[in-house]
């Protein structure tokens, strides 16, 4: 009996270790010289003293850093911050991905909090209640939580969110200008949060451009069911859609179907052009570094939280990236750029349902 | 000569089989201690012994399920090696297990074909198998439908399938492990007819049983085992039942318990027109009316599955009656939960003692106080009085001769007989008014059985009303004052002890009404 339970425990432990991979074990990749000769390190510390201390960030996210969506948008932003701040000596970060189980995420957040990180980012709206419990226990550590506007009134929690509806609106304008069948399909995950914001903005953009167009929306009830997202796209295409869009990481399946059928695609969160270069028209790309730089500055000044931030078209946190592989007619591109300007200067306004 | 070498099934006869000096050790136990045993063509050799005497070990060695530490097996005077059931089957040895080795969801033909090569390669050849089954059935006068599913068959029919299965595989020598334990008297008779036919045809049979009268009736020779050792082998005609019983137990056995004369008193338990459903949702009891009086044992006879379990559970309050009343000493308790009935001094010795009688992971002491643990002196204001509980347990262990290393031993580590003693101690020591004893001696050895029966009679002498539910007709006949026979959830008849015979009860158990039997109403 004993050897059986031992074996099962071993298997479980192995499984858990593997499923948590790319997590705290990962830092070696981003954090240079962590294992280099200690002599060198002390030497460096002795000669350069305090300023050499890098700004250290940990991030916990529900999906992966290369999901071509929400997770990747944060990872890419951290890489850009690192470049901007002068490389790993000045800024280092670690991450725990695939934390779709909230309890696991909470444990990871708490672990990081005990390890003297300057900033811990809980990159998922589902982590809110965990953070609310953890943050007060570590008053000297700064936390950031997105996407939300709620800091729980805690002095060491920042909140951040994306005005996804803005880029959604622009994508809607582009989609409406390109649709010939006057039917457009949307593949969404769950009707809430960032996805809903994007879809509502998108619908507003379509209707403002051509009120005769039908926008069919399909929420599949999952962030990970690639198969169902792919069937949702097939369904849209069968219903006559010639332009599709969608939000969250499971849309890869939908993009594949759009590519097969030669139907156009508009993306959000991270650039999806690499998946289907011939049909991805444009993507609203999130540049969280805009917000991150502000937060880092505040932390360095001693403000650990209590403020909320937003990325949008105006502050450059959202950028409409056109895919070079797709020959977008000039007048549509111009219209899109005008719309971006209009949203920034306030001449284009719209209301969400 | 060559002709006479063949059995009717076409198989070559096994003239003799000898097991010499067979020794098998299990951790801490010498299960078989240099045992010699032999069987010849054309005889029934009975193997007799209590539980744990080593009968099963010996036969499992012969069938290739165990490997002996010492000893050898000679077949027709030549040594053979039997490493697995496949080997023994190949040598012409078949085994009818006590718990049938049949797959209920498969047909007779599928069960027979299982594990055999097919004439059609990887595809089954059930039509061929069925043909051969019918041939064998004709030769041995066994009625069997190859296409019937096992779950549709009666226990007796299932046993015939087991025999056919062995014959189909060319068995010349058959081991029958407690084959009568699950049969009605009529079915036992039918089995004996088949066995006599097989012996006449030249088969050798090994008959394992602890029912002495059956051994005396069917066997030519008998071997008695005790504690892994052979006590002796005799021609059956030279021994009496009393001899055999004494050899088995190793001391004088009081064979028929002394019942004594007890006056029947007032009715303590009355059932009025009780109906309820079984676990499967089919009718379990259909309008049962019975009463049990002070100072009497009412025996409930019947083939397993005819409502015995439901009857006991309805009385104990574990099963809901769809209609009718349960009356305990004049009070209607139909709607009361089990605990309330127990408080009215109803004791229940359940059929599945390991499942319902004790909590396996609890100690002997804890199990002994299960019923009364919420009452004084065993607990006060919700706190257990462990000292009292321990003293109570020690006392019961002594009084009921429970063989246990200590009161803190877990129930699951006791033997069946000692577990039953724990249950008995708990249920009887509380001075009950009514006792429901369901299969109280099933699976127990002679010594324990004797003890349990003695205790029931003792209670009867004290004026307790006892309902004894048993599938062992001998037990029913030996203990009961009146006998009610259950058939398909109905009481077929209630026969007073003086008028009861195995034949009469057997017919009632099979659902045949007796014109001449005297119905006793009150």
């Amino acid at each position, binding site marked *: 009996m004993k050897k059986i339970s031992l074996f099962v425990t071993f298997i479980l432990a192995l499984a858990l270790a593997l*499923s948590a991979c790319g997590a705290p074990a990962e830092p070696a990749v981003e954090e240079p010289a962590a294992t280099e000769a200690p002599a060198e390190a002390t030497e460096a510390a002795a000669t350069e003293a305090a300023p050499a201390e890098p700004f250290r960030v940990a991030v916990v996210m529900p999906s992966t850093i290369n999901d071509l969506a929400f997770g990747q948008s944060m990872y890419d932003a951290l890489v850009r911050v690192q470049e901007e701040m002068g490389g790993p000596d000045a800024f280092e970060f670690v991450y725990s991905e695939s934390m779709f189980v909230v309890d696991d995420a909470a444990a990871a957040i708490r672990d990081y909090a005990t390890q003297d990180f300057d900033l811990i980012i809980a990159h998922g709206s589902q982590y809110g209640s965990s953070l609310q419990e953890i943050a007060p226990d570590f008053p000297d550590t700064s936390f950031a939580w997105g996407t939300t506007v709620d800091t729980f009134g805690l002095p060491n929690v920042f909140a951040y969110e994306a005005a996804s509806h803005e880029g959604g609106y622009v994508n809607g304008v582009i989609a409406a200008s390109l649709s010939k069948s006057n039917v457009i*399909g949307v593949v969404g995950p769950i009707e809430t949060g960032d996805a809903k914001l994007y879809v509502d903005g998108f619908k507003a953009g379509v209707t403002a451009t051509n009120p005769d167009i039908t926008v069919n929306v399909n929420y599949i009830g999952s962030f990970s069911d690639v198969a169902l997202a792919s*069937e949702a796209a*097939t*369904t849209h295409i*069968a219903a006559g859609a010639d332009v599709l869009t969608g939000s969250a990481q499971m849309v*890869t399946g939908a993009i594949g179907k759009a590519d097969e059928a030669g139907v156009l695609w508009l993306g959000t969160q991270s650039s999806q052009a690499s*998946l289907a270069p011939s049909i991805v028209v444009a993507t609203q790309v999130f540049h969280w570094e805009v917000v991150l730089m502000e937060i880092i500055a505040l932390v360095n000044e001693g403000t650990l939280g209590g403020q909320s931030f937003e990325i949008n078209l105006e502050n450059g946190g959202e950028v409409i990236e056109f895919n070079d592989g797709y020959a977008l007619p000039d007048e549509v591109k111009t219209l899109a750029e005008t719309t971006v300007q209009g949203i920034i200067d306030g001449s284009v306004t719209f209301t969400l349902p | 000569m060559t002709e006479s070498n063949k059995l009717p099934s076409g198989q070559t006869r096994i003239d003799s089989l000898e097991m010499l000096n067979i020794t098998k050790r299990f951790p801490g136990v010498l299960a078989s201690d240099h045992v010699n045993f032999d069987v010849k063509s054309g005889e029934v050799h009975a193997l007799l012994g209590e539980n744990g005497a080593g009968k099963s070990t010996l036969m499992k060695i012969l069938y290739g399920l165990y490997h002996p530490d010492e000893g050898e097996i000679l077949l027709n005077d030549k040594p053979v090696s039997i490493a697995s059931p496949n080997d023994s089957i190949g040598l012409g040895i078949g085994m009818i297990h006590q718990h049938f080795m049949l797959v209920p969801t498969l047909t007779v033909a599928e069960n027979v074909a*299982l*594990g055999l090569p097919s004439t059609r390669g990887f595809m089954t050849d059930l039509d061929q198998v069925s043909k051969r089954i019918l041939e064998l059935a004709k030769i041995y006068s066994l009625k069997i439908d190859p296409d019937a599913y096992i779950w549709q068959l009666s226990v007796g029919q299932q046993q015939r399938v087991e025999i056919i299965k062995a014959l189909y595989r060319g068995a010349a020598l058959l081991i029958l492990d407690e084959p009568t334990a699950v049969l009605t008297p009529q079915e036992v008779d039918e089995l004996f007819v088949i066995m006599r036919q097989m012996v006449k045809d030249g088969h050798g049979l090994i008959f394992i049983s602890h029912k002495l009268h059956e051994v005396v009736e069917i066997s030519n020779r008998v071997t008695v085992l005790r504690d892994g050792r052979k006590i002796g082998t005799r021609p059956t005609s030279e021994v009496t039942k009393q001899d055999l019983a004494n050899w088995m137990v190793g001391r004088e056995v009081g064979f028929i318990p002394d019942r004594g004369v007890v006056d029947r008193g007032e009715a303590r338990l009355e059932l009025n027109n009780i109906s309820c459903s079984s676990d499967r949702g089919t009718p379990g009891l259909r309008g049962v009316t019975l009463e049990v009086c002070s100072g009497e044992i009412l025996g409930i006879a019947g083939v397993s599955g005819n409502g015995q379990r439901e009857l006991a559970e309805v009385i104990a309050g574990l099963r809901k009656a769809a209609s009718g009343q349960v009356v305990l000493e004049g009070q209607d308790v139909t709607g009361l939960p089990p605990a309330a009935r127990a408080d009215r001094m109803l004791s229940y010795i359940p059929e599945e003692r390991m499942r319902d009688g004790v909590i396996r992971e609890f100690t002997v002491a804890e199990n002994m106080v299960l019923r009364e643990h919420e009452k004084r002196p065993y607990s006060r204001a919700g706190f257990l009085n462990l000292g009292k509980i321990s003293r109570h347990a020690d006392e019961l262990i002594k009084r009921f001769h429970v063989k246990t290393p200590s009161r803190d031993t877990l129930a699951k580590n006791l033997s069946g007989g000692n577990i039953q003693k724990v249950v008995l101690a708990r249920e009887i020591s509380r001075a009950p008014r009514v006792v429901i004893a369901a299969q109280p001696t099933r699976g127990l050895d002679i010594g324990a059985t004797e003890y349990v029966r003695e205790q029931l009679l003792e209670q009867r002498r004290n004026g307790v009303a006892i309902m004894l539910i048993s599938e062992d007709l001998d037990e029913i006949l030996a203990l009961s004052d009146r006998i009610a026979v259950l058939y398909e959830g109905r009481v077929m008849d209630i026969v007073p002890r003086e008028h009861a015979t195995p034949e009469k009860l057997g017919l009632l158990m099979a659902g045949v009404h007796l014109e001449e039997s005297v119905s006793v109403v009150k």
Partner: protein
Amino acid sequence: MITDLFSTTVLIGILASGIRLATPYLYAAIGETFSQKSGVLNLGVEGQMLIGSFAAFYVAFTTGNLWLGLLVAMIVGALMGLVMAFVTVNLHAQQGISGIGFYLFGLGLSDLLFQRLIGNVETIKGFEKIYIPGLSDIPGIGQILFNQNILVYGAYLLVPLAWFVLNKTTLGLKIRAVGENPDAADSLGVSVARVRYFTIVLGGALSGIAGASLSIALLNVFQQNMTSGLGFIAVALVYFGAWKPVGVLGGALLFSMVNSLQLWIQVLGIPIPSDIAVMMPYVLTILVLVATVSRVRAPSALTKPFERDE
């Protein structure tokens, strides 16, 4: 708008996508039927699918050979089955717990290998739809049934094949006997261990194919946790199908058809909240299960390790 549901386009759409969606369920659930019929509950299906899915994708991505990808998916699924068999048959491990262990193992390993070996979500050209002259041209039916890729056809051919093996061969007889009464099978010289090894390894191989059907035939991408609970639904479908291949087929089709129906309900703008719509396949499956549960009986030895003597 409700009436739109009954237009030819919509009906063909529902049926065709239902047929596709059912494909991975069929491979995995038929495999699971075999192992459960022999008395082993394999809850690691999801993990085996993920590994198979990744293996097929990786091989196809690097070599461009889809068939090789399929073969490797089968082999790694079977290997996982082999380990599962060792743990359940030889070590008598509690099947539910070890199954979950294998799921987590598959989830983690597929993710790890994906990160290390591929790194980004990529697409490949998967098995193409097969055009069958004549059949594919039949209006309606041709679009629904005969406009699919080879793995879809394979899944449906597997159903009668599984029925045949279970009911008409000596091997099937052994499998059924071992799952109902291993003691009886053992007493007749049938090796319970060998039969269970076979069914668990077969189940693993089929789960591997189920995963491959996603990554190199239906979706042509691989990403982390992309089976998304499909393997667990497949285990449930075995119960739903009363341990019969045809029942499993019925369950897989019902579940998938209702799923594609709810996609259309949303697309057509029928005013049912999306949260309710996505629950439809699950609710309906549970309802059917409740309605039929009384006649369903699991193999008696399911989840019980076999050991000679107590």
